[in-house]
């Protein structure tokens, strides 16, 4: 288990390999497809984003409402593939990490290598457990999107697994190859 902190440095990213299990501590940003659509439109128009993406991690997630006195409700990852169309532009703008679940498109995997970033997966459907790693949450932009607003969160020992690294490694492909029984 590797402990890493945000923002991600070139060195941290270079030290991560597909299949590595990590614990992430620091600030992360949270956005789903609806917020990404707006971020991508801003980049397209050459405008400033509501946060500086350089070295940051975006977590693909839309939490359930927090009970009174709680930081957040359930907070597990959503399917990353829906964000793929917006991802290369964010990586070009300096984003270094993404947390979600499921396969990325060939374009995103190429962009991860080109811009030297990393794609992590968190456990889908473990939203109650994951919420324990989140110590603070605030809305940064798009509150009108409700559960799909852009958030900033503080995380402590947030568990994730590296899926795609800068070397072209893919933990899903490697895992499936190891256990597949061809007929």
């Amino acid at each position, binding site marked *: 288990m590797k402990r890493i902190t945000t923002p991600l440095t070139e060195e941290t990213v270079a030290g991560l390999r597909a*299949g590595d*299990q990590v614990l992430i501590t620091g600030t992360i940003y949270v956005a789903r497809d*609806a917020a990404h659509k707006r971020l991508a439109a801003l980049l397209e128009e050459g405008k400033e984003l509501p946060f500086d993406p350089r070295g940051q991690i975006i977590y693909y*997630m*839309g*939490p*359930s*409402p*927090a*009970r009174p006195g709680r930081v957040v*409700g*359930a*907070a*597990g990852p*959503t*399917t990353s*593939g829906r964000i793929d169309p917006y991802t290369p532009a964010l990586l070009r703008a300096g984003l270094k990490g993404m947390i979600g*679940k*499921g*396969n990325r498109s060939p374009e995103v995997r190429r962009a991860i290598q080109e811009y030297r970033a990393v794609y992590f*997966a968190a*456990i*889908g*459907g*473990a*939203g*109650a*457990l*994951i*919420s*324990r790693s989140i110590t603070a949450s605030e809305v940064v932009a798009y509150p009108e*999107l*409700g*559960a*799909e607003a852009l958030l900033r969160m503080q995380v402590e020992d947030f*568990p994730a*697994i590296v899926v795609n690294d800068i070397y072209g490694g893919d*933990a*899903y492909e*490697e*895992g*499936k*190859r*190891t*256990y*597949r*029984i061809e*007929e």
Partner: protein
Amino acid sequence: MREIAAETVAETVARLCMEANYDLGEDVEGALRAALEREESEVGRGILRQILENAAIARQEKIPICQDCGLAVVFLELGQEVHIVGGDLYEAVNEGVRRGYREGYLRKSVVRQPFSARQNTGDNTPAVIHTRIVPGEHLRITVAPKGGGSENMSRLAMLTPAAGRQGIVNFVLRTVDEAGANPCPPIILGVGIGGSFERVAYLAKYALLRPLGTPNPDPELADLERELLERVNRLGIGPQGFGGRITALAVHVEAEPCHIASLPAAVNIQCHAARHKEAVL
């Protein structure tokens, strides 16, 4: 004739929405424990342990098992001797969803104008309601919140009769293989066969309500379930797609007669957070 108040329906639906989201069924938890015994991948076992821990936290602290608290799919089995009084039955179901999702701190995940504005309805309504009129004087309500990630990977095929059993097996395997890590494996497969275009999708969803590990009473279908489960688990996708022996916990098949020209088949993929609760009024 027996009277049931619409308000009773609303209260019941509200309670079931919350229970379904906090309290994973014993059958699913049992299947996850059995999977932990059989999984060879160390990463996979770690993931299964965390999924079980998640279920315990959700139940204890009344936090949803998953932040995707689902589209509320509601099955009604309405006895023909029942008379609903004091309101509209479907409005009562939607009122129950509204209350359950608000009072239970559940995420509202429904948007109107699906291909344009996509504006959140704010209360997780409308529910998708399937009604069956049956003999008797009871109303059975099953609330089955369904997440978007696994629903998106579900598929329907109008196969030709010549495709036969092999065609169905190939279609199911292709669907699961293409889904990969996206639907949050270990998954449960509801497979519908026969009926018509719209009926086969319903059958696939209905198949998911059966307690895990209970085979179809028809020996031919039970045999198909066994073959499908074994072959799906040879795909190697494993827990959360990181490789392993356990890609699916169960396969449930439901079949009905169909047209002489057709062989409809549908696969409804369900993530490991297989949530459904029922009550009989």
